[in-house]
């Protein structure tokens, strides 16, 4: 498959974008320089919680090279609005969430280590740093609130949030769930911590703000997954500029994983400051700043109970979760531990009654928001851990216990909003068991034991909800935006095509898959198609890329636009070929009069569309360019089964993943190579959560894991090669049948790994991250227990 061929759906087409990345010609935000640019450095709070009594910038302003120093007072004077959270969650007593004020530069208080106190703009970054050191801030230090478990008893962080609670929310039928538990033959209980993670896209966040005084217009280059949403928020809420006077460009973006969805203080300040200092203002985070100020992920404490009957069928499930919001409510933070979490608590199982309560707390830590999977990994971890624990308590094989409780009829309405449209959970379980040689595991365990090693195997049958739509439905749940997608297909007179999409690629390979789709549909070589994204001046509007939505929603919008292109092209072809429109067939890039050999190539019709000599322009407008907005009819529900096999060295506590099998049902797959890559990356992040990663704050709210020296990222030798398989049920809610694949690995893997460790260590109390020290202690306890037996 090369550039000059037509690329069918389902082919492993090599990526078009790779040429620039492998030759060092990628263009990331920090690679760009604007004439006359100055450099921003943010003075950050060294305290987790403090009142600002005063900021003295006089000495700093006199330092060499300083262009300007701005604080929260300047922001207020310019009436720049707060950063916002765009999803309204309502407490069970009917009160709306308590959103604490979040100015881009602190006004009277700082609320986490790394909070933004002032920005110094200077001729060089070093000059800005030197001047920042000369700013005198008079802090009155307040007690930190670093412990989620005790956040309600801590010092109040926001005036409008007593007990540091933003909302106390519930989902499901409490009475029905209690009734189910009253009937239960057995109740399994579990307490779990879902560890806090730092997303760590390898490209640190960056922003360049520029102001054109002639046009009174701003441009912001930024590391964003959704530039149009950034523009909307910065204009409609923060109020920097009217929407038509603000252009946001997200060029090549080096990974996001959710962390680049949000509208942060830094890009807000760089844009606003560009006008104030009359210079383009550039800021690039260093990794330490990323650890301090990128929105973190997860951070739940949960108690859950599962009720089963005598036959091992689930009767009910109840969950109570404390979720950490951090110091401020980030852009989508409210919906992550609610609508993207509790709605997935039915897993792949027919559970008649579910009740979930979520209490969301402020703490004096960095904001917490979506990170790969966003709520769904937390749900899957809870469901799949308690499924394993219940199976063991009931002495049923974990695979069999799952199978006994699978949803098998579709559509299936869960008690927690979701309506599963299609799936075959038994098929993915069967294939995964076969690929992982589940039957052969006891022999492998015995063999390992003979070598003094502990082997365990663990399953994780995840489900996720992607697409996050339709818009009216998410609106009724509190979303401040619609979650459709847009596309425009521009056919040029010479027959090549530009596709403008509101999706944004930051590693997903849209330039290839989207072009592949167009190539297959129009029958033109893939090198005749280019994909344009990430610039609000080029693409009119779009919702961006997150929640595995670009295939199901973004590509469906392209299909809709292609339908219109084809319909118009057929009309034009009919005139040229002097045939009835209904007789024109379009196949393999040619318009043919049915049953004849009279035909036109796509490019000939394109040219004619613009020359416009051969059809009545009173009936058909010249040109060939169509746009579409696509709003899905439902969420999509990718699901599958991941199986992890581990070997623990009880002498060192080191866990080795000896086998990782992932079987996924993503619906229709456009490019299997890219889909596999997404699964690999997701699994690595999930394994990272299970074994290596964990953000830690000390009691004073200081970030202990502030660099790669302290925060353990998965490296190549922490991971095996993965075995992947696919099963397929078509997604009925979009024209392509796509479900989405971006988050599956991160959702499924943690439970698979921890279930395997629980199996190896003979205990259900395996915390994440299961570092060698913790595993070593558990292996010791196991040895003592065994000796006693």
């Amino acid at each position, binding site marked *: 498959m090369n550039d000059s061929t037509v690329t069918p759906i389902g082919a492993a087409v090599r990526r078009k974008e790779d040429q620039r990345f492998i*030759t*060092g010609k990628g263009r990331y935000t920090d690679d760009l320089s604007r004439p006359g640019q100055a450099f921003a450095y943010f003075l950050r709070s060294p305290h987790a919680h403090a009142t600002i009594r005063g900021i003295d910038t006089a000495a700093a302003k006199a330092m060499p090279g300083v262009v300007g120093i701005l604080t929260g007072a300047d922001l207020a004077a310019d009436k720049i609005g707060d950063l916002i959270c765009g999803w309204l969650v309502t407490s069970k007593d009917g009160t709306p969430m308590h959103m604490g004020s979040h100015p881009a530069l602190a006004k009277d208080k700082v609320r986490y280590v790394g909070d933004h106190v002032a920005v110094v703009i200077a001729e060089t970054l070093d000059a800005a740093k030197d001047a920042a050191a000369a700013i005198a801030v008079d802090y009155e230090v307040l007690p930190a609130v670093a412990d989620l478990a005790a956040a309600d008893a801590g010092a109040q962080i926001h005036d409008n949030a007593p007990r540091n609670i933003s909302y106390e929310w519930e989902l499901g039928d409490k009475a029905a769930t209690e009734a189910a538990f009253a009937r239960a033959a057995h109740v399994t209980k579990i307490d779990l911590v879902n560890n806090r993670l730092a997303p760590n896209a390898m*490209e640190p966040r960056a922003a360049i703000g520029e102001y054109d005084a002639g046009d009174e217009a701003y441009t912001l280059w930024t590391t964003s997954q959704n530039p149009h949403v950034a523009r909307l928020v910065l204009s409609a809420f923060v109020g920097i500029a009217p929407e038509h006077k603000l252009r946001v460009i997200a060029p090549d973006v080096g990974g996001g*994983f959710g962390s680049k969805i949000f509208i942060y203080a830094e890009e807000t300040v760089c844009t606003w400051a560009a006008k104030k200092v009359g210079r383009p203002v550039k800021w690039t985070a260093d990794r330490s700043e990323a650890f301090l100020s990128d929105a973190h992920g997860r951070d739940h404490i949960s108690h859950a109970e599962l009720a089963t009957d005598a036959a091992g069928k689930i009767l009910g499930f109840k969950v109570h979760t404390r979720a950490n919001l951090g110091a401020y409510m980030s852009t989508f933070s409210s919906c992550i531990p609610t609508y993207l979490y509790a709605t997935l608590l039915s897993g792949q199982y027919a559970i008649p009654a579910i009740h979930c309560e979520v209490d969301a707390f402020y703490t004096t830590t960095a904001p917490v928001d979506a990170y790969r999977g966003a709520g769904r990994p937390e749900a899957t971890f809870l469901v799949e851990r308690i499924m394993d624990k219940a199976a063991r308590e009931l002495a049923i094989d974990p695979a069999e216990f799952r199978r006994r409780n699978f949803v098998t009829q579709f559509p299936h309405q869960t008690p927690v909003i979701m309506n599963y449209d299609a799936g075959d959970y038994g098929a993915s379980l069967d294939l995964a068991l076969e690929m992982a040689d589940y039957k052969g595991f006891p022999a492998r365990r015995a063999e390992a034991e003979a070598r003094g090693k502990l082997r365990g195997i663990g399953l994780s049958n995840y489900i996720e909800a992607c697409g996050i739509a339709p818009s009216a439905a998410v609106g009724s749940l509190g979303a401040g935006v619609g979650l459709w997608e847009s596309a425009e297909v521009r056919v040029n007179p010479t027959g090549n095509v530009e596709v403008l999409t509101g999706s944004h690629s930051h590693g997903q390979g849209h330039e290839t898959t989207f072009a592949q789709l167009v190539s297959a549909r129009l029958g033109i070589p893939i090198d005749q198609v280019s994909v344009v994204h990430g610039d609000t001046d080029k693409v009119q509007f779009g919702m961006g890329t997150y929640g595995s939505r670009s295939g199901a929603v973004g590509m469906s919008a392209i299909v809709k636009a292609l339908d219109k292109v084809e319909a118009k092209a057929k009309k034009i072809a009919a005139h040229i070929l002097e045939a009835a429109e209904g007789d024109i067939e379009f196949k393999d890039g040619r318009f043919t009069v049915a049953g004849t050999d009279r035909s036109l190539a796509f490019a000939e019709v394109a040219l004619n569309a613009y020359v416009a000599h051969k059809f009545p322009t009173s009936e058909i407008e010249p040109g060939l360019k169509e746009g579409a907005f696509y709003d899905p009819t439902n969420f999509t529900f990718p699901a599958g089964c991941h199986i992890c096999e581990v070997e623990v060295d009880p002498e060192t506590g080191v866990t080795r993943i000896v086998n990782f099998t992932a079987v996924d049902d993503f619906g229709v797959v456009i490019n299997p190579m890219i889909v596999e*890559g997404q699964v690999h*990356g997701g699994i690595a992040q999930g394994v990272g959560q299970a074994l290596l990663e964990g953000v830690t704050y000390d009691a004073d709210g200081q970030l202990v894991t502030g660099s*790669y020296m302290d925060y353990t990222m998965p490296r190549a030798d922490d991971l095996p090669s993965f075995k992947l398989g696919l099963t397929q049920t078509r997604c009925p809610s979009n024209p392509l049948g796509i479900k989405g694949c971006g988050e599956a690995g991160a959702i499924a893997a943690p439970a698979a790994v921890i279930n395997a460790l629980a199996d190896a260590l003979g205990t259900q109390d395996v915390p994440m991250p299961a570092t060698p020290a913790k595993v070593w202690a558990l292996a010791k306890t196991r040895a003592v227990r065994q000796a006693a037996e």
Partner: protein
Amino acid sequence: MPEIANTAAKVAVAMTVNGRLVSAELDPRTLLVQFLREKLLLTGTHVGCDTSQCGACVVHVDGAAVKSCTMLAIQADGMSVTTIEGLAGASGLHPMQEAFREHHGLQCGFCTPGMIMTALDMVARLGPDLDEATIRENLDGNLCRCTGYHNIVKAIGAGAAAMGAGAKVAAE
């Protein structure tokens, strides 16, 4: 323009970068990666951390892999530096670049230049016959958040083998 902050004496450096002789007067604290990115506009070499852990900045200095965030530009005075931009020849991509594309060894591309430069160093040190365990072990200075390393490992194995085969052909 206001006066620039740093008034320390500039130091002259000269080195060969991707076969071209370059020279400049630099603030002595300028890192090699800053010199490459900011002065020479060779932005293919990236910065992913501030603790010398991620390997996004790997270049070759006199043939050996170096984290250019950890070396001062003046330390490379008189030396020969190769960056990702210097790999592809007139005849096309380097086999290791080709292997990364063929085996989907990159997603966002941010770690990729460092990965490719490290891979070449691996081949130079250990030869073209690299098994999976060796590759994984020798990637311990390079982080990738996107790929889970699966396809990077495959790409390096294939790229190394292609280099070995190419060398054989050249020798015959």
